[in-house]
Every structure is written in C-alpha cells, then in structure tokens.
C-alpha cells in the first residue's frame, strides 16, 4: 500500500510561497498606491480619482500658493552668483537641502569612525574583539533616548545643525561598520597588508593607500545607506529639533498629520523617490538594495 502523500509535500511549498507573496503585497501595495494617489485630485472612494494633476506636488514642494501652504517646503537661497551687473540667486528647497547636508555631515563622521574599527575587527585578533564587534554593530540607544540625552548634556548645542549631525552619526554608525566589515571580510587583508609592508610602505600608508581604496565598494554602499537613513531619521530629530528649518522627516510628519490625503501622499512619494534613487545607486555599487542587517 502506498503511503498517502504528506500534507507538507502537497501544500508546503505553495503555503510558504504564498506567505512570501502576500507579505510583499502588504509591504509594497501601499507604497504604489501612495505614489498613484499623489497625482490624484481626491481620494474618497475605493481608489483615488481625478488624474493626472501635479497640484499636490506643487503644493508640497512650495511652488503653489494654496491653503495650508505654510506646511509646504520653503525655498532658501543656496548661493548667489554675480553675473555681470546682476546677481543670480540659486534657490533650493529648504528642508530637502537641509537634510541632505545634515546627512552628508553624519556620513563624513561615520567614514572616519566606522572604516577603521571595521578593519580592526576584520583584520586582527585581540582580547575583547567580540565585544568591540558587538558594540560597533549594535545601536547604542534608540533615537528618542539619545535625543533626551543630548538635550540634557548639550542644551545649547543639541538643536543646532552640528548637534543633529553628531547625533545622526552615532545612530547610523553601525550600518557603516557592517557594510565595510563585510567588504573587508571578503578581502585577503593579511596578504595585502604584508605585500605593501614588504615593499616598504609604512603601516598608516598601507591602510590609507592600499586597504581603504580596495574596500571602495563596501565603503561607498555603507555611505549611501547611512546617508539615506540619516536623511530619514525622525525620532532623534523630533526630540531635539527646536526652531528654524526642519529636517525632512519632520516635514513628512507635518504633512502626514495635517494635510489632505493626496498632499500627504505627494510628500511621502517625494521621499520614496529619494530612496529609490539611493537603492538604484546601491545596486550600481553591487548590493541588492538595503542589504545590510539593521536592528
């Protein structure tokens, strides 16, 4: 007598595959709908209606004077070009430019602190190596706690751009360390180092001119990931931000909480496009999207 085929043989694979596709749909469908809705006039029925309009985008980007335009993106002069007798003022969207700048500052700090420690863990054996590794790849505290701590420790500095940059760099440092470390681990570090040393290079020179350039792709993807995560950092910014231009995540929150659905959709879609651009960049340097363990 033939044994009856087991349940898992008959259904296992389909159930597992179905779970995957259902979850992907759950994760991605609202993203697609949001982008679609950002071009709609209204969304009151099952699906958004009144296509195609750019009013939401214009309102969110601060290009149109509408009700609630105080929530729109501000425009501020980036620099002035003296052209002949006239001056040409180059305007940039304030929140966007502000966040891009803050996140770049955070990435610079991350490069300086993250690349060396990743190399130390990947290349050398030393007592306490496991703990150094754990401290460098696990976030120390979440944004809210760090925000409270910054307010206490640096009351004057915490709401400034510099305070935000330092905070972002600590919060996102683990991502840089992980990206660079996985690159280092795929390299023959000891051979590289020893060859360079035997050719007469000092150790600092070996590190800076042989090791670091070879780990380029890991460093670049770490920088891109850290940049995107810092540009989107909400929790820390929400606690410490006091006045002036808002970071991008706070700009998103003020739309999500206050604006009409389609306008909020436009604000969130703008953010999606930034992340898509970043993901495409990441794939160019050879990684599959945000393929770094987060926590």
């Amino acid at each position, binding site marked *: 007598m033939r044994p009856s085929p087991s349940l898992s043989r008959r259904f296992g694979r389909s159930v597992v595959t179905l779970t995957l596709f259902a979850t992907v749909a759950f*994760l991605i469908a609202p993203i697609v709908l949001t982008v679609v809705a950002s071009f709609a006039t209204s969304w009151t029925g099952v699906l958004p209606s009144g296509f195609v309009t750019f009013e939401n985008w214009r309102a969110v980007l601060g290009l149109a004077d509408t009700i609630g335009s105080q929530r729109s993106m501000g425009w501020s002069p980036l620099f002035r070009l003296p052209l002949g007798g006239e001056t040409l003022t180059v305007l940039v969207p304030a929140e966007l430019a502000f966040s891009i700048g803050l996140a770049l500052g955070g990435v610079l700090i991350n490069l300086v602190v993250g690349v060396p*420690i990743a190399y130390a863990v990947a290349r050398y054996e030393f007592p306490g190596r496991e703990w150094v590794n754990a401290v460098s790849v696990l976030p120390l505290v979440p944004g809210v706690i760090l925000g409270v701590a910054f307010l206490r420790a640096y009351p004057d500095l915490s709401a400034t751009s510099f305070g935000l940059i330092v905070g972002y760099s600590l919060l996102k440092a683990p991502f840089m360390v992980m990206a660079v470390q996985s690159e280092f681990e795929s390299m023959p570090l000891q051979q590289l180092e020893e060859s360079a040393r035997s050719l007469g290079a000092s150790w600092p020179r070996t590190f800076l001119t042989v090791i670091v350039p070879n780990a380029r792709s890991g460093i670049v993807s770490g920088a891109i990931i850290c940049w995107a995560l810092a540009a*989107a950092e*909400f929790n820390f910014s*929400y606690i410490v931000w006091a006045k002036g231009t808002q970071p991008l995540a706070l700009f998103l929150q003020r739309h999500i909480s206050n604006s009409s659905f389609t306008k909020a959709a436009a604000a969130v879609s703008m953010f999606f496009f930034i992340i898509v651009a970043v993901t495409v960049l990441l794939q160019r340097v050879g990684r599959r999207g945000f393929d770094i363990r987060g926590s």
Partner: protein
Amino acid sequence: MSDRHAENSLLSTLRGLATRVVGAFETVVNPVTEREREYRRIAALCAPFAVLVLVAGLYPLSEVVRISVSAAQYRSVGFSLDAYATLFGDPYYRQVAFDSLWLTTGTTLVSVGLAIPIAHALEKYDLPGEDLLVTLVSFPISLPGIVAAFMILVLFGNNGVVTAVAAALTGSRPTDLAFAVSVPGLFVAFVYSMVPRATLILRGTYAEVDSAAEEAAQALGATPFETFRHVTLPQIRPGITGALILTFRTGLAIFGTLVVIQTLVVWTLQLSRELGVGYDVQVAGAMATVYFVFTFLFTVLGLRYTSAEVGI
C-alpha cells in the same frame, strides 16, 4: 591586625592594577615588540569610534542618569530616588511598561514568524524575479516609522483601500471598518516596520545552511516538513534567536509610528511626553535610564546565554 592585613593586600592589588594599566598604556604609546605595535594599531583604529561613543553616547547618557536622581527639577543637584519611586510605584507607568512589552513581544513573534517562510522561499526556492523580490522586501527598511504609519493609513484608514473594498462588499460604513487608528492598526504598523528587518537577518542565516544534509534527508524519504523540522531548523536556530533579540530591540525603539497612530501609550511615547510643558524631567531621565539598562541587559544576557548570532 587582620584589618591592617586586608588593607595591605587591597593596596597591593590596587598597585598591581595601576601598574598593569600604566603598563598597557606604555605598550600602546611606546611599543617594543611587533605584537605591541599591533596593539597600538588596533587602539588607533578603534579610537575614533570610541571618541564618538564617549562624546555623543556615554557622556550624554551619564547626564541623563544624573538628572534622574537629582533632587531639583532641571538642575542636577543632590540625590533623590523620587523619580524611580514614581516610575515603579505609579500604576500608570506600570501600565505603560506592560503595554510596551506585550506589543513589542507580540509584533516580534509575528514578524519573525513571517520572516522564516519568507527567507526560506527566497533562499531555497528558485522563484522568478528573485532579485526583485529581495529588493522589494528590503525596501521598507529605509522607511521611518511615520511613513510606516502612513502606509497603514493607506491600507486600513478611513479612506484606506482595504477599508473601502470591505465596505463595498459588506455594505457597512467605511468608518466602522477602518482600524488603522486603533491598537490592532498599531500592531500591524509595527509588523510593517519589523518584518523586513527580521527577513534580512534570517536570509543571512539561511545562506549558511548546509543544503547537502537537506537533500540527503529528502532522498531518504523525509517529507519537506520533517526535513525542515529536523535538518534545517537546528541549523537556523541561532539565527532565529538573534532575529528575535534584534527585532525586539527594533520594536521597543519605535517612536515615529506612535506619533501618527497615538492609540497606545508605550515607553518611548510617554518619554517624549515627559519633556513637554508641565511634565517631569527627572521622570524622563529615569525612563531613559530604565530603557537603556533594560535593553543593555536584555541584549548582553541574550547573547551570552543563548547561541544567538548577531552581526555578520
């Protein structure tokens, strides 16, 4: 007499320790052997990170601990445990702690429970467009909590798609069916943020699974479930524990989602409220301290006493 003796031995222990610290310092500054030079390099490589953690992390945290035991509002003076008495004595804070813990535990279990089949399908099956699926599952990792909350509004809010479809099918009013701004909605929003992260960790674990053993089990007549249960699961168990620990940490840290969907007051939300007008800075400090100590101990014990794998 024995006191004197104890004092002497303590002194000599201290002296020995001091000599060792000074010795280690001298080794780093003035290395003689190649091994000592290597230690100097390691110290130099770790120094920038250590400075950042000290200046931006540990010193600010120490100020938080200091204010939490301060006897005065806004200034760190004296010593008082009033804030901790409030935190542990007031039933309100106990409720906040309880709500944070059950919400995070529940969402962690659901997220890791979903991530196991997702990682399994991505790593074991030859699916069409696998790279695209990986990109799509990873994409939400980069979305802050506020955007995750908005995604839930898009699906289950008053104007949400699922709400509208369900309302059209059942004939009830959308506002009766919308559950985005409710505790279940918050639960789903947490899962939205946590599933991609849990999947990422488990995919790393799955990549290291020995597939020859699985094929052998299958060839010997084990059903797919038996193969998973007895061959795959023992290999991925450390990864699952690691994913549980890290996803739990992620869940506890969520804050932005709660700013949009304020239906349950959890620890982080209450903490931000303590900073508002008329609230208590010492209690905020105590809440931050308790949070830090809890997650620190939880992670250290988790990594120490389980075979959890964290990092790459």
